[in-house]
């Protein structure tokens, strides 16, 4: 049980640019925090600084209010599960689990009972006498998890532990990890670049880019209200369509012109945007799932489009279409929907769910 606090933490490797640049993050006691971001954004570096495997160039890290910058990794009482598991190849599974306990001088009978308990929880009791090289990837992953659990650390640090598993096993492990977290209630920091893991596992997600934190929040909160263009374009797949456009004032009503389409902004939004539409340029964001094939009794805005590509995924059909101005967007449509490539197609956007971004600052304009 512990809360982990990062204060103005930076990491600079050698003479490169900062891999982690002045980040602040508060992870609550018992929280499942997901660090999400593209490759090279500094997720692992952040995790490794918390673990003590990487020195902290600037800033402070606290565990339960205690400054740990200079505390040896062996004494932080954290557990890591690495992407490639890093089991001890010369020891069998039981010895792998026992290693940390022995170093901490846990009595022998207690070590045994804790190993058995952990092995039972993870379904690896049959594997205790095997060497790591005699295990499948999925089994190694469980052993790595077991090695972390058996020590009952103050927090778990996961560095993409599911990325080497096949899709089906990954889905199983996702649910198991969440269940495990519910049972243990231990703080978890989970690094991933998998959207689904981030959305389904985390109490909160922390989205990083190029060493800085772009947004922290509950998964659905971040999905509903992305703070900027990067988050909007990163979360979910296919991500939000982002289209450059400009405001037009036509008499009483405020309109936006994007790629050859004119959208009338609903009156109650127009007021909210009143303070910003003096800026002419804007980026409009609309999620593929907010585009429909029917107008919902005229409530949605019609767009004349041309079909560019069709991806029939089974549960749904992703349609890539071209707007009159040439901009391509994607729409998430019913699985039975088909239209030939090149054909004209009328689609309807739920304009109430649109997002607007300032092209200069890239920040979202107005929280609804």
């Amino acid at each position, binding site marked *: 049980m512990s809360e982990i606090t990062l204060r103005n933490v930076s990491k600079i490797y050698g003479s490169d640019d900062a891999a982690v640049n002045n980040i602040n993050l508060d992870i609550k006691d018992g929280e499942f925090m997901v660090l999400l971001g593209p490759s090279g954004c500094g997720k692992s570096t952040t995790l490794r600084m918390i*673990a*003590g*495997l990487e020195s902290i160039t600037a800033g402070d890290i606290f565990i339960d209010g205690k400054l740990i910058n200079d505390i*040896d*990794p*062996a*004494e*932080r*009482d*954290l*557990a*890591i599960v*690495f992407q*490639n*598991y*890093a*089991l*001890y*190849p*010369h020891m069998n599974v039981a010895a792998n689990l026992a*290693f*940390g306990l022995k*170093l*901490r001088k846990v009595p022998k009978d207690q070590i045994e009972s804790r190993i058995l308990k952990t092995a039972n929880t993870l379904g690896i009791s049959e594997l205790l006498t095997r060497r*790591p*090289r005699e295990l499948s*990837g999925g089994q*190694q992953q469980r052993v790595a998890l077991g*090695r972390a659990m058996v*020590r009952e650390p103050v927090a778990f640090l996961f560095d993409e532990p599911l990325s080497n598993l096949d899709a089906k096993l990954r889905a199983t492990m996702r649910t198991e990890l969440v269940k495990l977290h519910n049972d243990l209630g231990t703080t978890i920091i989970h690094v991933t670049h998998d959207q689904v893991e981030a959305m389904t596992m985390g109490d909160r997600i922390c989205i990083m880019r190029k060493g800085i934190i772009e947004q922290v929040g509950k998964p659905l909160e971040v999905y509903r209200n992305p703070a900027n263009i990067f988050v909007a374009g990163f979360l979910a797949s296919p991500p939000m369509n982002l289209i450059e456009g400009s405001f037009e004032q036509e008499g009483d009503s405020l309109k936006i012109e994007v790629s050859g389409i004119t959208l009338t902004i609903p009156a109650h939004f127009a007021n909210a945007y009143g303070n910003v539409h003096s800026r002419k340029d804007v980026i409009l964001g609309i999620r593929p799932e907010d585009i429909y094939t029917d107008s919902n009794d005229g409530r949605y805005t019609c767009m004349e489009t041309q079909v560019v590509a069709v991806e029939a995924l089974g549960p749904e059909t992703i349609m890539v279409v071209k707007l009159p101005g040439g901009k391509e967007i994607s729409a998430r449509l019913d699985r039975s929907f088909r239209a030939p490539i090149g054909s004209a197609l009328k689609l309807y956007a739920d304009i109430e769910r649109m997002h607007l971004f300032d092209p200069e600052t890239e920040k979202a304009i107005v929280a609804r």
Partner: protein
Amino acid sequence: MHKGLLKRLLPHVVLLVFSSAILFPILWMLRVALTNKMNAYQIPPVWGNPNFNNFIEIFADNSFMGYFVNSLSIAIGTTLIALPLAAAMAYSFARYNTGGLPLRLAVLSSQMLPPVILVLPLFSLFLKASLLNTQTGMIIAHITISLPFLAWLLVAFFEGDIVIIEQAARIDGATRLQAFLRITMPIMAPGLLAAGLLSFILSWNEFLFALILSGPQTNTLPVGLSSYQSHRGVDIALLSAAAICAILPVFILLPLMKKHLIKGLSLGAIK
């Protein structure tokens, strides 16, 4: 069907030709070693009745036994000192990047000079330090060959997957020393063993340094053999027997080394 057979046979034929080019002189030497001075020069070979008299004679010969013991103790001494030093060097390069790239290159560059350039300064140094014709001197000389080479070999070992495994141990609660002794060393053992065997063989076979720096009391086998004379003059059959004895350890150690080298390089822990 025929094509497949040819395809499988061809590499073997090629390998057979090449390996017989290497094996033939050795087999010839073996034949000579098993016969006597009279039959030794006969072509086509005359077999007489093969016997081990030559081997018995050289081991009864004090000078040969002297070379053998010198070689053995110098090779073992070199390895016992060079291996731990090289391991420490390699670990420090791999973990702390000691001296950075320049130091690594400096260590390696000593391997790039022709040995003959090093041997003369070493000779004058040893002369001043009265290390010529001593085992200590020979061991020091061979360490200058072994150490950089072993360090260079072991850095690759210490920089591999072992880094993360070691970090896992640190997180598990091990101090640096505990992680090194209980995780890194056991995992690296085959690699270290291979490196040790290599060091032994390097020293065992070394000729130039031994020729210049050793003397009558400290001659190693390669030097001794090059001037091997029995009390009856040069006896090719005796010399062959001695040469066979000289290469025997290498023949025994090489396959061992190959096995451990491969084991050391692939931890097999990480799929």
